[in-house]
């Protein structure tokens, strides 16, 4: 999926800066102030995005340490510390790590398509085609759902909402 959040925000800032703000009534102070705040808010969001996950993990780690330092050694406290350890372990890969891995796998499969159609046997071509089409059958409903708000689906689209699809797949 190519329309990442940072691109959405960047293009919104571009439109605000180069088209919308110059067109505002110069005497409308509140509109100029709010427009500048919108640009500031969006720019801050762009800056914040790469660090959000690491920030939350750092905060979680700090609170886990704080709770462990206290003398309250109840069963509930121990369970919370165990929970924090588990979440820290499971969340060690960042969103960037996940995306990089997706790209590496896609690159490997795309390269395999090229090489198989250049040098492979008919059976190998059939196999790699099947793998690609099966992957696309799993992925394209998710991509379509992710863009439902853009209005490019017909009124009778059969695409299930993204949240429902992700719940069904369990994020796998």
């Amino acid at each position, binding site marked *: *999926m*190519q*329309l990442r959040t940072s*691109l*959405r925000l*960047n*293009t*919104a800032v*571009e*439109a605000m800066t180069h*088209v919308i703000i110059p067109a505002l009534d110069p005497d409308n102070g509140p509109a100029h102030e709010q427009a500048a705040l919108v640009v500031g808010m969006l720019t801050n969001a762009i800056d914040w995005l790469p660090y959000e996950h690491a920030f939350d993990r750092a905060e979680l780690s700090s609170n886990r340490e704080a709770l462990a330092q206290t003398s309250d050694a109840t069963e509930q406290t121990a369970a919370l510390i165990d929970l924090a350890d588990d979440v820290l372990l499971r969340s060690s890969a960042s969103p960037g790590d996940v995306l990089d891995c997706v*790209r590496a796998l*896609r*690159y490997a*499969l*795309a*390269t*395999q*398509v*090229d090489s198989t*159609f250049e040098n492979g046997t008919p059976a190998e*071509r*059939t196999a*790699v*085609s*099947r*793998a*690609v*089409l099966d*992957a*696309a*059958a799993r*992925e*394209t*409903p998710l*991509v*379509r*759902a*992710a*863009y439902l*708000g*853009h*209005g*490019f*689906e*017909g*009124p*009778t689209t059969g*695409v299930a909402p993204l949240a429902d699809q992700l719940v069904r797949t369990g994020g796998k």
Partner: protein
Amino acid sequence: MAFGGASKVQVYFELDWTDADGAPSHTPMVLRMDPAESIQETSRRREFELLTAFSGIVPAPAAYWLDDTAEHLPYPAMVTGFVTGVTKPTTGAAGVSGLKASLTPELRNSLGQQFVEILSTIHNHDVDDPRLRSFERAGDAHDVIVHHINSWDRIWQEDSDVPSPLVRLAFAWLRANIPTPDRLSVVHGDFRTGNYLFTEDDATISAILDWEGGHIGDRHEDLAYTLNRMFGSEGDDGEFLVSGLMPESEFLDRYTQVSGLSVDPETLRFWKIFNCLKTVIIAVATAYRITTNKKTHQDVLVAWIIGTEGVLLDELRTHLEEVN
């Protein structure tokens, strides 16, 4: 600046001038100029030649001046006449770039007939028209298609940011299944509702727009493009309507009847896959690259078009399933 379109900078203006016959004139015009980068890099010269060649043959803006080397303007540009009309009903809904426009049955009937007649006229036009002097004419029609595949593969490889196994599979299938066209035609390249103007009071097409992708090729390319589900909409009964005008079978029957040209289903399927791949490349690769690099005059609109990614990839997948 004129509103509409995602590809070129368009500026409306009115000019007081002395026309070619020496008469004083007041003429509404449109400056059509490349942005720094576009979702389709095309030739203003060839677009200008097409407008000139089809002047008086199909409704199209008048072609006044060409500055294809950017001698007078910041980027390659041309000046055309301004044509009155709308790309979508003023009371109806439509998405960006006129996509998914909803037309009344009365409009569909009238515009649909003209739509087919104009496309037929374009496809029957003499490809050796001397006014089309900047167009490549390969000696072998097969080579024309190979050239198209190679050029879009290069665009994909230059513009894409994320590898796509599905795109690679589509290219592999196309290379292995190139048809042999029975004749060459002028291909408009972007023939759909949203890319023509019509006057609402008499339901008449007043201009065919966006000739920038026009070339000499296989007419099935245009037909398949027009059939793309992205450019159509659904009628009241839920049936898919080509360009929001008529069902696919009716469109192809009418085209065959009016043009006198045949439609080969296998060739049509090839071009459906080709066009679907082309639109995927524009959305996923080029639109992504030029908006990421802040290279257009309307990045937010071009980025919005990346949202066609899901529908287009799924259509490409469906086509490839049919042939695998």
